[in-house]
């Protein structure tokens, strides 16, 4: 039974420019789960706000929801945060575990430079203040996937604070108006990932895989500036794109490289904030908004029925489509934070404060990192709009699929056709073509050159668009389509070309 798609309080009808895919793809590398539907008007967000109907039935007071997020992104580095063991997804269990990761007595943490750089880059990209001095702490709790009995994190003084993340929603009729929203970033901290537990109910045992134990994480804390699942999902999507553009995290949710915990509460506007619950481990892009909206509605229902909201931790049951309390997390945990005595304070420099004669291997210069930041998604979109005159929502769509932007740019290079035409073909027909066959851009049998050529032909009105679509079909080896094409060529050449020759040429061309 699917959970009803309900919204707390959103800006009228908003079409978040990152729609959630109705069919997630696995093993495609980065960015699964978030793809554009390609066809406007078909977005899942064109839902009727059922909430309104309920509201007017139950009472006059409106509800406002407040959503904050804690996002854990695995750092894309060769080795772990404090040890030299490798970082790989899906390696044989316990094959990437150093003595330190296994918490063998006497082992000590050694900070990974690449992880610090990744944190600084991410902080700069998110407009944070980078703390030139930050500290490491131990957070204690007992769990089988935490060998040392504590996690090394940055509780007192994290590496970056006070940033912001901008994301965009389209509103109004025909979704043409783009509104930029901002969510404040409280902080970014470096911390260790834990191992993985696999519960074997049959044998009443838990199997522990420590491959992930000690992998570097960036925890990005988003202030409760969001008001519904859509906004949260969009913000997460934008963060994902930024991390991927920076190269600091592959941020693939299906592979566990990006995990989201949401802090949710509801209140009446004008009144103090309500009790919040934490919904943990939202690891699916697809269900992120749904889970948050469910929780918002659940809280509203509880409060309207005169019940209280417990300050508790919940998880989202994907099958049932609802949040449930987490048994383990009853009662408040005291993590007994303590400074990590084996790691001196982390000191970063800028060009002005860099000590003379400093060993470049031993110091990190924030200014240098800032200079080398790659282009961020928002810049890329702006450039597309300026350069090609395409619509804002199309610029979002182009960035929403791995490899699509590059494909688009390659087609543009080789074709005379107008960018608007190219955009339309790429986003509608080409993308639709891929979706039908469940292919990623890099698996497409239709190369940018082929599409460019097709568009040129179209442009010169040599072939019709129907024919062009059929050519794409052809690429999959549809013999009837070849015959059709032969027919078309003959027509164009006023029946002067020899069909056999045409066939040969076409086959040669199409098979290249």
């Amino acid at each position, binding site marked *: 039974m699917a959970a009803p798609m309900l919204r707390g309080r959103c800006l009228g009808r908003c079409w978040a420019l990152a729609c959630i895919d109705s069919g997630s793809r696995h093993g495609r590398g980065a960015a699964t789960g978030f793809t554009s539907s390609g066809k406007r008007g078909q977005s899942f967000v064109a839902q009727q706000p059922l909430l309104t109907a309920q509201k007017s039935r139950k009472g006059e007071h409106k509800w406002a929801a407040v959503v904050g997020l804690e996002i854990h992104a695995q750092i894309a580095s060769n080795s772990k945060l404090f040890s030299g063991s490798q970082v790989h997804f899906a390696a044989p269990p316990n094959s990437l575990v150093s003595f330190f990761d296994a918490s063998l007595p*006497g082992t000590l943490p050694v900070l990974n430079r690449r992880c610090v750089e990744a944190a600084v880059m991410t902080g700069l990209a998110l407009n944070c203040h980078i703390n030139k001095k930050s500290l490491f702490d131990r957070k204690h709790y007992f769990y*089988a996937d935490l060998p040392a009995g504590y996690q090394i994190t940055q509780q007192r003084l994290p590496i970056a604070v006070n940033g912001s993340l901008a994301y965009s929603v389209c509103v109004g009729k025909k979704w043409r108006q783009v509104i930029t929203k901002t969510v404040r970033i409280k902080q970014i901290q470096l911390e260790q990932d834990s191992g993985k537990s696999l519960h074997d109910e049959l044998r009443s045992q838990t199997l522990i895989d420590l491959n992930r134990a000690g992998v570097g994480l960036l925890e990005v804390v988003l202030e409760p500036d969001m008001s519904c699942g859509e906004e949260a999902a969009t913000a997460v999507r934008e963060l994902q794109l930024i991390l991927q553009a920076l190269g600091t995290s592959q941020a693939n949710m299906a592979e566990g490289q990006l995990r989201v915990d949401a802090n949710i509460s509801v209140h009446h506007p004008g009144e103090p904030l309500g009790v919040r619950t934490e919904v943990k481990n939202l690891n699916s892009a697809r269900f992120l908004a749904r889970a948050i909206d469910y929780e918002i509605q659940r809280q509203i229902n509880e409060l309207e029925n005169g019940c209280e909201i417990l300050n508790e931790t919940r998880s989202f049951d994907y099958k049932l489509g609802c949040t449930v309390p987490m048994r383990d997390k009853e009662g408040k945990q005291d993590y007994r934070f303590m400074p990590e005595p084996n790691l001196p304070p982390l000191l970063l420099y800028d060009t002005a404060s860099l000590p003379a004669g400093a060993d470049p291997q031993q110091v990190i210069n924030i200014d240098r990192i800032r200079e080398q930041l790659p282009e961020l998604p928002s810049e890329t979109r702006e450039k597309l709009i300026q350069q090609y005159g395409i619509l804002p929502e199309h610029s979002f769509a182009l960035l929403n699929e791995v490899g699509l932007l590059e494909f688009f740019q390659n087609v543009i290079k080789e074709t005379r056709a107008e960018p608007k035409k190219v955009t339309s073909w790429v986003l509608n027909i080409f993308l639709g073509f891929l979706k039908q066959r469940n292919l990623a851009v890099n698996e497409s049998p239709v190369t940018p050159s082929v599409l460019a050529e097709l568009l040129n032909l179209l442009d010169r009105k040599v072939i019709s668009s129907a024919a062009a679509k059929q050519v794409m079909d052809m690429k999959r080896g549809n013999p009837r389509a070849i015959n059709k094409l032969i027919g078309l060529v003959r027509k164009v050449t006023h029946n002067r070309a020899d069909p056999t020759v045409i066939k040969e040429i076409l086959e040669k061309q199409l098979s290249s």
Partner: protein
Amino acid sequence: MLGRTLQEVSAALKQGQITPVELCQKCLSLIKKTKFLNAYITISEEVALKQAEESEKRYKKGHSLGALDGIPVAVKDNFSTSGIETTCASNMLKGYVPPYNATVVQRLLDQGAVLMGKTNLDEFAMGALGSDTGGSTRNPAAHCGIVGFKPSYGLVSRHGLIPLVNSMDVPGILTRCVDDAATVLGVLAGHDPKDSTTIQDPGKPFMLSSLTDVSKLCIGIPKEYLVPELSSEVRSFWSKAANLFESEGAKVIEVSLPHTSYSIVCYHVLCTSEVASNMARFDGLEYGHRCDIDVSTEAMYAATRREGFNDVVRGRILAGNFFLLKENYANYFIKAQKVRRLIANDFVNVFNSGVDVLLTPTTLSEAVPYLEFIKEDNRTRSAQDDIFTQAVNMAGLPAVSVPVALSNQGLPVGLQFIGRAFCDQQLLTVAKWFEKQVQFPVIQLQELMDDCSSVFEIEKLASVSLKQ
């Protein structure tokens, strides 16, 4: 040969008066004879003989590695030794065989030292003998009439040292004379990339100069260390030592370390807090002791830790967790850190006022007989025995205990010198001068062995008669 200093033995090896294998065998024989002392938890006989053989090959070719080549060494059982059981004298690590060497162990082995075995300690180094952390290099040295040296914090790598208090632990060196301590320090000191709290300098071997003129030296005598519990004998040795320096031209002045009386309590808060944290990893899952209970993970943790740790360890863990609770953290942990800063500053102020080295007792008295010893509980004993030594760990300073004389009972007494941070060489130079002046008697091993044998014989007879 076994009673000689490192340098003497090294010379003998070089000259071929004795071979590494012979030396190793003599050592092993003595260890076996003195087994009743329970000094060794593990004797690594095979490993030692193999290392001795390799050393011998090197000497024959004339390619000895240095002063430590072929020298028998023993390592306290809280240093990780690859392939050799490492227990910290705890049930929790019974049977634990590490897969790696502590950095200091590796550096000794790289110089050709021969590892005789792992020596005993109080469980996780938490006993009344103190710890590396509070004085357990210097205290036993004082009681046994040898040199016990604690380097500056950060000078010697802690990688592989199973920690008690990470912010205070330092590998300590026990030798027959100060020169030997300097030799070993030269091998051990210097940056270790595996330990982020070590200094950047790479470190290198050095020779101690022989001071002839102490007139430029200023010795400080901290008045707060003159406590009522100090035995009159030790007090008199301390006094004589001060006079000795003065008569040879040094400046000897009284100084004050005003926060001394707070250091025991401060030490206990910080020590137990770090201990609680460091012991969290002993859960029976990855290595070490695991109980038989498999009802639930929590039950397994509880039983494993109850079985694996003794009362002292458990007591410290509970205390430490108490101090780290959210509601207590500011009042205990943070306050203790602030007091620690004050204690460290006391030393800084004294050294800034022109003092080169401080002179203090190492222990309150000579070694206390066992039956006396066990009358007090662990915490009281620690407090008493560590009184002169642990403030030094809180400040991270170098300190060395040098044997001064035998007591009326014929037991050794030592005195402690404390130096400025990273001025270890200067400290040892002063200690060496003092050692030369006092001429502490060299232990007569043969006599001792004869005495021991008779004790051993009596014990054997006793057990035989009991059986009958």
